[in-house]
């Protein structure tokens, strides 16, 4: 039996001439997400996409609810452009709703196809009356119904649905290009990555491993975070960059108060190196202003000065509580707060420089870490392909 899922998308539809491109991308992302399921096809009409399946609708809906660009997905039924046919489908839908225990409803019709002779309010009345006749224990409540039965009268057919699963919205992954995400095990960077993804950026995460100063369990944590992000993106390629030698060189040669800035600069350079390899056009970090001493404007300036790429900081306007809230919604919070890394505060300087001068930092940093050491770190990086759990 053929099953239909009606998909609404928001911003994608608003993008003028680019609309086709965005829609194509969204359709491709949906196809990828539905891989392995009995998909018949995805079709478009103005402002809507229709997915036809031979089954496994529940799983399909779940997967679609993680596709960026998609606003909502509804299991729907189609009917010929005939009021009687529409009534039959509407009654069937409301029988299912009643079986699930719902008792109040209203009918809401949209009629983009003006060739259909019956106006929306009349369709509402007719169909509502039919439902009341056919399905026991239902009453109409136009102000706050438990179920809103929607009827969309379109060019070729009418579509009837009442359930809706919301998607993440935003732009389809990849329409904005590709970027490298500096991913630590903390609360912020996975949220930053998700926000970048929601604006159409594909992400390639990099994680800096400083064994024995950070534990292998911290790396496990980062892998688990990638699993969560992969729910939205499909497979993720994680770079694990060995960082111990660079960190050691910085510790042995650099002044204490600039260690954090130095470390961030090295990470930026390495992320830039990965970006070049991966043809990525931007770096993403979880920084926001003023949370810690290195995240002052001058601190950020000194950090990003070492790369040519734009450094995007999606969290810049959020406070910690807001970031935590988003991390909880995303499902990364519980992973991020595992303690393995926090107990290792070995390298936090007691009196960090809060307003570093860019030139002074560059001068003091010169010669501490050779370009060869950086190249070696990228060459020795391990790449892991991670899929959702």
């Amino acid at each position, binding site marked *: 039996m053929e099953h239909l899922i009606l998909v609404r998308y928001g911003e994608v539809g608003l993008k003028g001439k680019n609309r086709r491109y965005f829609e194509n991308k969204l359709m491709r992302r949906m196809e990828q997400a539905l891989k392995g399921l009995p998909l018949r096809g995805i079709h478009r009409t103005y402002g809507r996409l229709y997915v036809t399946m031979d089954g496994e609708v529940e799983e399909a809906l779940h997967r679609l609810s993680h596709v960026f660009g998609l606003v909502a997905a509804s299991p729907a039924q189609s009917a010929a452009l005939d009021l009687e046919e529409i009534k039959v489908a509407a009654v069937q839908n409301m029988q299912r709703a009643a079986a699930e225990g719902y008792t109040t409803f209203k009918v809401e019709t949209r009629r983009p196809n003006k060739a259909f002779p019956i106006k929306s309010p009349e369709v509402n009345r007719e169909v509502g009356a039919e439902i009341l006749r056919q399905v026991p224990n239902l009453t109409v409540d136009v102000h706050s119904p438990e179920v809103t039965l929607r009827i969309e009268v379109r060019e070729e057919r009418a579509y009837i649905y009442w359930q809706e699963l919301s998607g993440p919205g935003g732009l389809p992954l990849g329409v904005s290009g590709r970027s490298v995400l500096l991913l630590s095990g903390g609360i912020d960077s996975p949220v930053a990555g998700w926000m970048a993804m929601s604006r159409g950026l594909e992400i390639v995460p990099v994680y800096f491993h400083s*064994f024995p100063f950070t534990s292998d369990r911290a790396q496990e944590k980062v892998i688990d975070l990638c699993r969560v992000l992969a729910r939205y993106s499909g497979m993720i390629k994680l770079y694990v960059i060995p960082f111990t030698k660079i960190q*050691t060189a910085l*510790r*042995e040669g650099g002044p204490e108060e600039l*260690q954090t800035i130095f470390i961030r600069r090295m990470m930026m350079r390495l992320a830039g190196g990965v970006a070049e390899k991966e043809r990525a056009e931007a770096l993403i970090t979880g920084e926001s202003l003023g949370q810690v001493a290195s995240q002052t404007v001058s601190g950020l300036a000194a950090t990003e000065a070492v790369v040519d790429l734009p450094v995007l900081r999606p969290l810049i306007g959020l406070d910690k509580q807001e970031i935590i809230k988003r991390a909880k919604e995303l499902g990364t919070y519980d992973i991020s707060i595992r303690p393995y890394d926090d107990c*290792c505060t070995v390298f936090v300087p007691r009196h960090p420089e809060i307003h570093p001068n860019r030139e002074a930092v560059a001068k003091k940093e010169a010669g501490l870490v050779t370009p060869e050491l950086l190249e070696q770190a990228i060459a020795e990086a391990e790449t892991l392909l991670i899929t959702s759990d």
Partner: protein
Amino acid sequence: MLEAYLDNSATTCVHPQVVQAMVAAMQENYGNPSSGHRRGQAAEQAVKKARGQVAQVLQVNPEEIYFTSGGTESNNWALRGITQARARQGRHLITTKVEHPSVLDVFRLLEEQGFTVTYIPVDKYGFVDLDALEASLTPETILVSTMYVNNEVGAIMPLLEISRLLKQKAPQAAWHVDAVQGFSKLQLEPHKLGIDLVSLSAHKIQGPKGSGALFARHDLHLPPLILGGGQEDGQRSGTENVPGIVGLGLAASIMWERRETAISHMAQLKERLRQRVLTEIPDTLANGPQDKGGAPYILNMSFAGVKGEVLLRALGDKGIYVSTGSACSSHHAHGSHVLKAMGLSQPMLDGALRFSFSPDNTLSEIDYVVDCLKEIVPKLRRIIAGR
């Protein structure tokens, strides 16, 4: 790569004979001891034998041994059970500052329930302060809980002296001893000392995880914690963990049989490691008892200027497995409550590692550990100290 597993106070490798006995208990003797048929009776016999083996080590009646899921359950049951039974006789409880979390957390709960708890301090070696204990004993005291061997520094608590104090000053109080780190390796005879409750565990003595026991004196009237099918004389319901119980009994009797040679061997390992580290690596400290009163299988050392967990991981890379404090406390970010109670300075607290031995460790493993420490510690110190 060479390997040295020196985390035997966290858990041990199960003895091959124990594994064999447990496999037999799963594949052949798999009956439910409560069943009326022959298979049930055979399983019941196996449990009975294990009960005898445990009782033998403690020199108590087998009827006084109840099998549990391990040390944590035994501690919970003993402390919650006895305070529930005696709440009307008094509201004062005593324990020490260096107990395992499965004891301390129960006391914190009891405090919330309205009991008054005195936490006895320890001296710089980790021994309980007997004067403080004496001063805190009152006619209102209904329970005293002291551990036998401290899991982090190996201090063997002076149970004989504690016993005398209790008999003199608070004979009415029940006495619980958490003997998880001492059972079957060191002698402990509850009846001789007047101990009412003893917790013990299998996986610290080359037995399986998830298996332990509680000794409760026959006339104690300890109410059960877990209700149900009435197993263990109605005291601990739930179908008996026959393989685990068999494993506990056999592990206890094997350890008990070999304890003299095992103890002198482990004492030798400990002394070699302690001496070599102290003389060959500067700014190190042996925490806990120095020459006597320390368990020969636990050695706690501090390496100033190094974070314990960083050193732990660097050693792990060399196939050397140790712990910072106890394995349980590595779930928490803060430093060891035991070392804090002993008054260690912050750098020594941060740089503390516990080495704990089994009879199967060798002197050459110890030498390998020292060699690795000599290579790693200076390197880490240099990096952590910075310029």
